[in-house]
């Protein structure tokens, strides 16, 4: 989901410079104004209604005391809106029960992700990371304005004015007023030049389990997703796409499709043929009746086995050197024990519960889009390009997204291209709702790439790692996207290798080579991106090396993390809470895995039951250090959810090709985890006052290797490739 990989290296805190610019005093004191767009913003086309305090575009306080966060990040369930609101409320001294949120309009100048630069976008587990200072400053500035307003109105010294739970008060005179009552007065106060943020010991909300702001709507059927948007005269469109990637339309026959009651139009697009109808059901039936002739001369025609065979040929050749340190070859030649292993990983679909969909109303002078939009800047640009408009003529209404896992943040905006292309094809004569069916979603590409790893690694007589040669073949995610220049260096896509060369393990002698495979299949980041496969390889190999060295796998890891206290601490914590040294009944096994990604450290211990009993992951104990846990309950939820999400890709999910055609269709043959498979989960969070790091993605990488290592502990059988071949366990 957007490259944190490279952000890790070059831009994890590009905001740092901006924030420090003009800093005059001790840490925590910053000058406002240049980057927090206050009051007379470019967006303020109309003055706020009387009695509404709108000190800047991140915050709105109404006469009814409601405090509304204007969220620059989209909400796919990761809890970003609640997190951002917590930061504002903390410094503002707001009453949590009065907090609300709205999504910000698309405007990269005002709502850019400070990690990514001048781009309005959510991804790479950066929402809290990039907003940590910014949103607290917004709250602090607003609080100072309320204090100043009250002091002036009551003619008392500002130093005697206190704010607590949305109430401004002056103890000596007994005066008090709510934010709502003071909103108009506060609006007239100049924006403070400096704000001082609270120290950690003064926090009242950060680190507590505040209720999510989106629970009510999502439990009463009233939350609005893009699929729920209804516009007057709106037509629903479904698209017939080629069953082989890269095929193009030769001709189509819409005669039968147009006979379906409710079908209004059938139009050709660059990528297929769209059927427009008065409702979804008519559109789907119209598409079933549509006949399209395809040109497959440039299309992907290979099967999965063919691609794997090509990967295996490719890996034998000379790759691109992605990392070299020490002397891996020399150390391996002298190693006491050497393990050579191959790992394969399939294409994976994201399969968010809400299939891709979006609505457009296009006019000659502009267009308005409703979408569970993740990369507003990209989608704005793409829609403008297709429609021949300027980016500022595109208005995007961001809505709650029914999951993403990376799919809604596509740097080439495939579904936005389709949406705008339909609007163009019908000259904008009606609002259009583009809807993907589940089959469209599973078969539609933009998968996690298929990857092949080969590792040769050794240990010396004293049980230390003695050389690590690592080769892999993958499709590059970033090549050909607007992010290519940032993420691809000398042909090496950072997202192919993250988690290997930048491991926190002390591996002195390491050589990493990459081969870029070519395919017509479009690929995309999938929750945790490269870490979704690299962590599995690293943590499985570590386990194997520990075994041949005769070392305990947990202690072996601690030895390699001696210089990384935060990393070692999560390994120790997970092991301790899981009862690492306690015995398990026959047929059960326990395995550990740890990984560092998105600046977050996570260790997991898995317990499994193996055949002859039915295979089951019984329990996962996780320990996480993500810096400050702004909302520990949401951190816990993200780890629980990551386990549920990644379990199905560890155990069964794969997208396979048969002569270029995707074999999977729907949730029967691409089945997400179901409730009966969900293990018991315990999440332990390391108490920390370090700045927050990512939490949406880092829960995914350790799951598969923890399970695989547990399977080995129980059965002595080493399953390396994903999904695990559980049938081989007997």
């Amino acid at each position, binding site marked *: 989901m957007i490259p944190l990989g490279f952000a890790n290296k070059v831009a994890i805190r590009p905001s740092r410079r901006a924030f420090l610019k003009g800093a005059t005093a001790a840490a925590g004191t910053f000058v406002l104004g240049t980057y927090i767009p206050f009051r007379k913003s470019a967006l303020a086309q109309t003055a706020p209604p009387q009695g509404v305090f709108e000190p800047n575009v991140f915050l709105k306080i109404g006469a009814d005391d409601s405090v509304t966060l204007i969220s620059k990040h989209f909400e796919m369930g990761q809890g970003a809106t609640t997190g951002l609101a917590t930061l504002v409320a903390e410094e503002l001294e707001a009453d949590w029960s009065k907090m609300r949120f709205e999504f910000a309009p698309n405007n990269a100048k005002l709502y850019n992700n400070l990690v990514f630069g001048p781009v309005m976008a959510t991804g790479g587990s950066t929402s809290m990371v990039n907003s940590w200072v910014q949103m607290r400053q917004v709250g602090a500035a607003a609080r100072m304005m309320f204090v100043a307003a009250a002091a002036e109105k009551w003619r008392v010294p500002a130093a005697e004015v206190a704010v607590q739970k949305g109430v401004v008060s002056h103890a000596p005179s007994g005066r008090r007023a709510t934010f709502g009552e003071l909103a108009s007065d506060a609006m007239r106060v100049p924006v403070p030049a400096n704000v001082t943020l609270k120290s950690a010991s003064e926090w009242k909300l950060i680190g507590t389990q505040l209720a999510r702001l989106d629970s009510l709507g999502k439990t009463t059927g009233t939350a609005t997703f893009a699929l729920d948007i209804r516009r007057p005269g709106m037509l629903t469109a479904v698209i017939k796409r080629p069953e082989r990637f890269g095929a193009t339309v030769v001709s189509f026959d819409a005669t039968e499709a147009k006979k379906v009651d409710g079908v209004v139009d059938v139009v050709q697009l660059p990528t297929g043929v769209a059927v427009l109808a008065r409702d979804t059901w008519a559109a789907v039936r119209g598409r079933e009746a549509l006949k399209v002739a395809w040109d497959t001369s440039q299309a992907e025609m290979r099967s999965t086995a063919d691609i794997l065979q090509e990967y295996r040929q490719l890996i034998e050749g000379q790759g691109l050197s992605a990392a070299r340190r020490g002397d891996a070859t020399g150390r391996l030649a002298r190693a006491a024990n050497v393990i050579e292993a191959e790992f394969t990983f399939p294409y994976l679909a994201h399969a968010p519960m809400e299939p891709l969909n979006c609505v457009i109303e296009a006019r000659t002078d502009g267009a308005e889009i409703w979408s569970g939009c993740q990369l507003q800047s990209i989608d704005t640009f793409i829609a403008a390009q297709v429609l021949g408009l300027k980016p500022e003529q595109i208005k995007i209404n961001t809505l709650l997204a029914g999951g993403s896992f990376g799919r809604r943040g596509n740097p080439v905006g495939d579904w936005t291209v389709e949406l705008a292309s339909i609007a163009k094809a019908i000259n904008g004569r009606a609002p259009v709702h583009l809807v993907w069916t589940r089959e469209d979603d599973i078969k539609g590409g933009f998968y996690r790439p298929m990857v092949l790893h080969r590792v040769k690694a050794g240990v010396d007589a004293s049980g230390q790692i003695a050389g690590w040669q690592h080769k892999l073949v993958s499709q590059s995610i970033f090549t050909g996207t607007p992010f290519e220049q940032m993420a691809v260096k000398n042909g090496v896509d950072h997202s192919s290798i993250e988690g290997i060369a930048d491991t926190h393990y002390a591996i002195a002698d390491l050589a990493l080579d990459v081969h870029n495979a070519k395919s017509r299949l479009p690929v995309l980041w999938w929750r945790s991106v490269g870490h979704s496969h690299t962590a599995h390889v690293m943590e499985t190999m570590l386990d194997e090396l520990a075994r041949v060295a005769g070392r305990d796998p947990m202690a072996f890891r601690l030895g390699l993390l001696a210089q990384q206290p935060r990393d070692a601490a999560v390994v120790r914590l997970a092991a301790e809470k899981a009862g690492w040294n306690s015995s398990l009944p026959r047929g059960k096994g326990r395995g550990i895995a740890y990984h560092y990604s998105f600046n977050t450290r996570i260790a997991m211990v898995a317990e499994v039951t193996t055949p002859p009993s039915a295979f089951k992951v019984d329990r996962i104990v996780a320990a996480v250090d993500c810096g400050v846990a702004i909302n520990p309950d949401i951190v816990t939820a993200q780890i629980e959810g990551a386990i549920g999400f990644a379990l199905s890709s560890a155990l069964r999910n794969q997208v396979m090709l048969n002569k270029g055609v995707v074999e999977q269709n729907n949730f029967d043959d691409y089945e997400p985890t179901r409730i009966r498979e*969900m293990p018991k989960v315990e999440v332990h969070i390391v108490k920390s006052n370090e700045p927050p790091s990512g939490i949406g993605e880092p829960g995914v990488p350790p799951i598969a290797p923890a399970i695989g290592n547990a399977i080995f502990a129980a059965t002595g059988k080493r399953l390396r490739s994903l999904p695990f071949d559980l049938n081989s366990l007997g």
Partner: protein
Amino acid sequence: MITLTINGRTEQLDVSPETPLLWALRDRLNLTGTKYGCGRAMCGACTVHVDGEAARSCSIMVGEVVGKRITTIEAVSGRVADAVKLAWQRLDVVQCGYCQSGQIMSAITLLSANKRPTDADIDASMEGNICRCGTYVRIRHAIHEAAKALA
């Protein structure tokens, strides 16, 4: 013209009897709390109550439910429904929330028939409802909480 009883109201719909109930609810009656997830009764996002029982509206034709009581998330009410929704809110079960209308409708059916479900009962009863965000730990917990509140 098809006549259906939805959320206690009589609705006249100009649709063919083969139209899936899901699309009649969403596209004709604007009852969008019921979600489309798979269209083949495999994920449960479209779960509604038909005569009080959880049913997958994507795979029921409107012609099949004439004369039956259809209830959607927007109108489901009563002691069990209130307890389930409250437990979901108190435990912050939701993440993306898209599947949760269906999860809640299935949980209400479960608790209406079984006052003290075990984990195994919950797994059996909720197996048809997929949550891709993986909120299952909390779904189990919330159903136990709701059961306690109802006891």
